[in-house]
């Protein structure tokens, strides 16, 4: 029950929110469910990483990497551009709450909290970008290398 509360519901909400965002980005057909699955998967990895005592920034890095691997594989399977899936699936991780809390501290005059929240937000955005970038670069190298090897050693 505790696991259900901690993992299942947040991932379900992330899934549904990503599916709804797929409508905004004009995604038709089954691709919209893949975006949703990516969003849910990313949040699951994020929560699991936090459970293993990773900080928010490291957890965001791992989760972005997982989403990128998932999106690259799906793009190969469906022969579609990868960007659409990745954009939507990364959304639950984009630190919108960080911007809001930073501004709340700013208005309340809590400079220390404002600055630390701001830098945490920036760090999280950067680690998302770097995590997704590295993972999909690795996947691309692997996926383009493998067929060549098969050709060399039939």
């Amino acid at each position, binding site marked *: 029950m505790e696991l259900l509360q901690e993992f299942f*519901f*947040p991932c379900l*909400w*992330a899934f*549904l*929110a990503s*599916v*709804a*965002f*797929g*409508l*905004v*980005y*004009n*995604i*038709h057909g089954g*691709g919209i469910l893949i975006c949703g699955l990516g969003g849910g998967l990313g*949040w699951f990895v994020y929560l699991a990483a936090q459970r293993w005592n990773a900080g928010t920034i490291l957890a965001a890095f791992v989760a972005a990497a997982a989403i990128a691997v998932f999106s690259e594989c799906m793009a190969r399977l469906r022969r*579609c*551009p990868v*960007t*659409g899936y*990745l*954009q939507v699936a*990364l*959304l*639950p991780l*984009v*630190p*919108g*709450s960080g*911007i*809001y*809390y*930073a*501004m*709340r501290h*700013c*208005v309340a005059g809590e400079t220390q909290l404002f600055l630390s929240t701001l830098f945490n937000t920036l760090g999280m*955005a950067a680690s*998302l*970008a*770097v995590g*997704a*970038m590295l993972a*999909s*670069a690795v996947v691309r190298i692997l996926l383009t290398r493998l067929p060549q090897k098969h050709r060399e050693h039939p």
Partner: protein
Amino acid sequence: MDYDALLNMGTELGYQLMYSGAEIYRVEESVRRLLTAYGLQPQVFAIPNCLIVSVNTPAGHPITQMRRIPAHGTDIELLERCNGLCRRLCREVPPLEEAKAQVDALGKERHLYSNWVFLLGYVGASAFFCAFFGGDALDSIYAGICGLAVGLWLLYAGPYFNLNSFVTTLFGAAIASLAALGLVGLTPGQNLDAVTIGTLMLLVPGRALTNAMWEIMAGDIISGVNRTAEALLTAAAIALGVVVALAIGQ
């Protein structure tokens, strides 16, 4: 062969790709492959709001076309259609008239969802994001209403007043947090933070952030820096809009 028509076709495909929100690398590569398939050696250069395609005819006559790309959203359906068509044209290389008709059809028949589906997307996304950030059922309903307000603003008011994306986002964020303040004021004890953040997620620069790293990874540093600046500016616009609303709320 009619090289003017060929160049027009290549540029039109690139334009539609850019307009659907494709990354620069994909645009340049698609136009290059398409024109190469028709036996030319094109030079293609693109940055986020400009596309230049230049070819030399076999007689040695250089021809160039430049298209400026207006502000645009993301249209994954159009992107997938452009990509599929480009692959097919490169593989089959049909006669020029036939190919040109197919490329011209891309922009004419947009398969956009109707506006109420977009609004449903905005409402659903903000409601579920509210639940995601720890709101209960009533919070999610409030967030859905705020999302509807932001969606109406983004879909109708922004284009009507012909605003740029910075101002649109700024007012969108202000509307989101003011509506959240007003609704949560109706029934005390609701989670204001969850309602506001859930609605703000509609505006966060997720697309610009993803695109930015994509361009940098592909080696298009100018476009990457451009998109990074776009992401930072959007975040700043959200922050400004929230500050206005929070200051009023205090």
